[in-house]
């Protein structure tokens, strides 16, 4: 494409007459077009991809009536408490004394193990972020519910007993 049309000057004019070579003014625009479309593609992609995503969160209504309260079977409940420094504490059933420690990577295995060993209708995960947990921790854990396809879960505040126990454990482990 790169054409440099060089027209030969009008024949022989005899000796002593200089030939004036006329160069074409045409420029090859192909690379420029390429660049143009590349930039267009870039801008099209960046404009559509900037939209943020969102996850849905439905919270239950607060109720004082005992018959409206969800009942959780002890055998099917898993309580995850989110503490300081990205640490997760968990226990099965109703006894916080059996609390164990894990982290956000390994918690998936614990949830899945529980899910496998429990009938679907009994399984209930209780998420209890304490005062030192971050918003990211809470969202990560909610996300974990989606990832592991847990149908029934709730987010509640830990009881003061549980919070004290977490603090003791944190102190012992030296979590900052």
């Amino acid at each position, binding site marked *: 494409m790169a054409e440099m049309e060089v027209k030969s000057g009008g024949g022989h004019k005899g000796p002593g007459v200089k030939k004036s070579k006329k160069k074409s003014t045409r420029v090859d*625009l192909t690379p420029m077009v390429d660049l143009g479309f590349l930039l*267009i593609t870039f801008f099209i992609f960046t404009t559509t991809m900037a939209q943020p995503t*969102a996850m849905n969160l439905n919270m239950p209504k607060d109720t004082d009536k005992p018959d409206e309260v969800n009942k959780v079977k002890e055998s099917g409940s898993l309580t995850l408490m989110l503490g300081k420094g990205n640490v997760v504490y968990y226990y099965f059933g109703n006894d916080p004394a059996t609390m164990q420690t894990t982290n956000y990577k390994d918690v*998936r295995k614990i949830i899945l193990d529980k899910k496998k060993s429990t009938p679907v209708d009994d399984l209930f995960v209780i998420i209890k972020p304490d005062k030192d947990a*971050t*918003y*990211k921790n809470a*969202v990560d854990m909610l996300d974990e519910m989606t990832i592991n396809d847990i149908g029934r879960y709730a987010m509640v505040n830990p009881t003061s007993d549980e919070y004290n126990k977490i603090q003791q454990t944190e102190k012992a482990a030296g979590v900052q």
Partner: protein
Amino acid sequence: MGRAKIKRGSTNVDMTAMCDVAFLLLTFFILATKFKPSEAVEIVTPGSVSNKHAPQKDAFTVSIDKADRVFINMTDEIKGDVFDEMMSERHMKVTPEDRKYFLEAGFIGVPLSQLLQFIRVPTDELKNTKFTGVPADSTNNELQAWIGAAVAAGQGKKLNFLIKGDDAAKYPAFSGVIEAFKKNDIYKYNLVTTVEDVPEGSELFKANLKAQQSETPPAK
């Protein structure tokens, strides 16, 4: 019998026109792109596997920054109505000028008592201004009042409530925001997040895979 001669045309195409079009489009896209305005409060949202787009229309966003301050953003469609509602509810006297400033202000980041001064601060000076955030504690829950005003003003409209929290925000702040929503009988929110890949091999990953396969049946 001579064959008809086929003239060989040049394969050169004039690129000028194409170039013009390309750059016209380029100019259009550059001008039409809205770059994210530099925010006075920077919020890093956590990742989630959700791939649903955050609603942009009639959105009422409550942001929590890393220092647990609470801010309110509204889209322009509802902003005026919410302001009128809030001012009449709190019996605050405002001039049309105040209303104009409020509509131009990017977000609400101060208690009501300082609101009228706050909205007069130019956007580029906000970075150097100190603001306390909207009070959302139990003694003076203005966040709850704002949400109430939005619900009252958006009568008949389906408002989208978004919560946009920073990674490092503490959970009690988030819990306080949810409490304020609950007091207004709102139980559905969208948490603004950034996209994260679904971990391979997990339940959701398998479910997505299944859904994909049923959508595109193998060609026979």
